[in-house]
């Protein structure tokens, strides 16, 4: 508890990503040019060569898995076991946070939050679907005292609470001073618990699907998973494009995706020496400047998307929801960014955190898994793959929404936007 009483004793860390002392090398120009060229080429080939009538069938598509597997997955015992598992892991996390040393080099709790949960949810959701929904310890806590007659969730709410929470989490991870100290993490945790449990007490457990940042993040990434549910409830193997196509068009989807894109972009920017100089010499002080930087990154990403949606609306008056109609196509781009930025962090820090949780002190951070060239190729590959998936998803949606005569012209603004995002993403990896 000393940290709560004397936070001064905690050494100040420079504003940076919460955990991990090794950052990835800046990209060499070769990889950057190769990536940018591929992205451009793919975009224009897609315009000319891709199909002219919509192929994706969203949540109607998919090859059903064997019924035994479905029964096993749906069995109440499986669900309970997952709930208990999530609760147990959360308890271990909380105990480490409360009783462990106030030092991220010796306490696995900060790493568990910033790496195992935040970054680890990406591959977990891609492989198995919306896992956090099944593990979420808040749902377990809520189930102990469910409200008798929860109110209906306002339709306009959508994913907006989750977008706000995700922005706050990004601020905690990328901007907050001492974001690995026990006092900060406990405060954030208390705030999170308060908001989520109060919301759930009012609206019932559907609140989590709209407001829990980790659940929404995991569910959105799970849209790209080969495992999914069809509209009839069957567990199916499906193309990630169909999963993506079935992303519910809730209000706040655009905001959520823009927060994901913008905060990852800001993480890339925060490695730039010029930005570091700006932060350190700014008359506002480093934390307000970094906050403004993060907000500006999110605002820039959103403004670009808003502009694009505006142009789409101008080209086709019948398109009433230009913003949410194409938001799903940004998800693969966000996934590409996330992979490029956090792959090596996950691989190097994962084992270190696990070793620490196992009780070893001074756990060495293992060497990066790939040589610098391999890592650079993977980063560019991830960004470009995300771009390609996004372009294909947007193409299919636009041939469905636009009349055939205008389908090619209609998607031009989107393609330009995606090229801008991709080149921006690669540019941040070079800087």
């Amino acid at each position, binding site marked *: 508890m000393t940290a709560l009483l004397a936070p001064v004793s905690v050494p100040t860390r*420079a504003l940076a990503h919460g955990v991990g002392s090794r950052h990835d090398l800046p990209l060499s120009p070769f990889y950057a040019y190769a990536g940018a060229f591929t992205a451009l080429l793919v975009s224009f080939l897609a315009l000319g060569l891709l199909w002219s009538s919509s192929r994706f069938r969203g949540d109607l598509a998919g090859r059903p898995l064997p019924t035994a597997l479905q029964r096993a997955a749906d069995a109440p015992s499986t669900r309970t076991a997952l709930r208990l598992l999530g609760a147990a892991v959360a308890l271990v996390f909380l105990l480490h946070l409360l009783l462990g040393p106030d030092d991220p080099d010796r306490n696995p709790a900060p790493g568990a939050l910033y790496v195992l949960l935040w970054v680890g949810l990406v591959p977990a959701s891609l492989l198995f679907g919306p896992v956090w929904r099944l593990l979420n310890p808040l749902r377990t806590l809520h189930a102990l005292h469910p409200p008798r007659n929860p109110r209906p969730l306002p339709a306009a709410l959508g994913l907006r609470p989750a977008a706000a929470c995700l922005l706050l989490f990004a601020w905690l991870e990328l901007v907050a001073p001492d974001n690995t100290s026990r006092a900060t993490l406990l405060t954030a945790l208390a705030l999170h618990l308060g908001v989520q449990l109060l919301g759930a007490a009012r609206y019932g457990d559907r609140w989590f699907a709209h407001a829990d940042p980790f659940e929404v993040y995991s569910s959105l990434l799970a849209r790209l998973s080969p495992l999914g549910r069809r509209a009839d409830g069957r567990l199916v193997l499906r193309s990630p494009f169909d999963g993506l196509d079935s992303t519910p068009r809730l209000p706040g989807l655009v905001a959520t995706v823009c927060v994901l894109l913008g905060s990852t972009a800001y993480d890339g920017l925060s490695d730039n020496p010029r930005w570091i100089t700006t932060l350190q010499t700014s008359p506002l002080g480093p934390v307000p400047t970094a906050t403004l930087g993060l907000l500006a990154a999110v605002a820039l990403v959103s403004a670009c998307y808003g502009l694009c949606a505006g142009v789409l609306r101008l080209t086709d008056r019948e398109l009433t929801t230009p913003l949410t109609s194409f938001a799903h196509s940004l998800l693969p781009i966000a996934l590409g960014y996330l992979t490029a930025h956090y792959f090596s962090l996950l691989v190097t820090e994962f084992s270190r955190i696990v070793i620490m949780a196992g009780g070893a002190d001074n756990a060495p951070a293992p060497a990066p898994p790939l040589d610098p060239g391999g890592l650079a190729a993977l980063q560019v590959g991830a960004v470009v793959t995300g771009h390609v998936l996004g372009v294909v998803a947007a193409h299919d949606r636009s041939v469905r929404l636009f009349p055939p005569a205008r389908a090619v012209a209609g998607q031009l603004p989107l393609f330009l936007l995606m090229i801008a995002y991709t080149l921006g993403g690669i540019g941040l990896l070079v800087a």
Partner: protein
Amino acid sequence: MMRIPGALPLGRRFGGLCLVLVLAAAPVLAGCGGRATTHHKPGTGHQEATGGSGTLLPARDETGHRLRELPAAQAPTVRAEVRPDSEGGWNVHLTVERFLFTPESTGGAAVPGRGHARLLVDGRETGRLYGPWGHVPAGARTLTVRLHADDHTVWAADGVPVQATVPLAGTPAASSPPSPRPTEPGRTATLTITGRTVQPPPSRIELKKGERLTLHVTSDRDDTLHVHGYDRELPLSAGIPATLTLTADRTGLFEVETHGSGLVLTQLVVR
């Protein structure tokens, strides 16, 4: 449809278990402390790291190394004797108990009673001893010998490093001029901190893997220099230049920062 009683529940349970196991693999490892097989440097298996290698204290010595405490009955001891060398400086002889010099496993995990000794001349680290004999050049006033474990932590008993300090009395410094500083190999960078301004402004130092880097850092306040990733720390005294030398043996981008003021001084780009 008829089903064989018992068969289905078993299958269901088994399938559920499989799913649970697969879904749970990552978080469970964090919880139950399973021994993860990861990339280890030779000699850093968990047996050594966890089993009876003393208690790692939060305290660090002035060169930034953590202390590793052993019960007094198991802790090594060291005594140092010096006698003048005919060509200048001092010959040092260490007498150690419960301690073995293990140069071949330096960099591995800490094992009680094994490691190396470091020489601190006037409080500044000048070299290591991997055996009982060594030499200290002329011009020094005191010599401290400190015992380190293979993982570079300092052996300690009762919270105090295991060390011996001897005065180098009657130093023949007046008769012979102090030897010039040996030229430092590799790259050199000089950084000055004034308030929140770093001169030169934060930039990137490009290094080849294996290259040596010497940082000369002057801060206008007492602070601690920290090289991320290499986990090297150096105390900075206000206005007094401090020097830190490291070998860039990990690739990546690493930040050099101060802990007190939380400033990034520069970034090391090691390819």
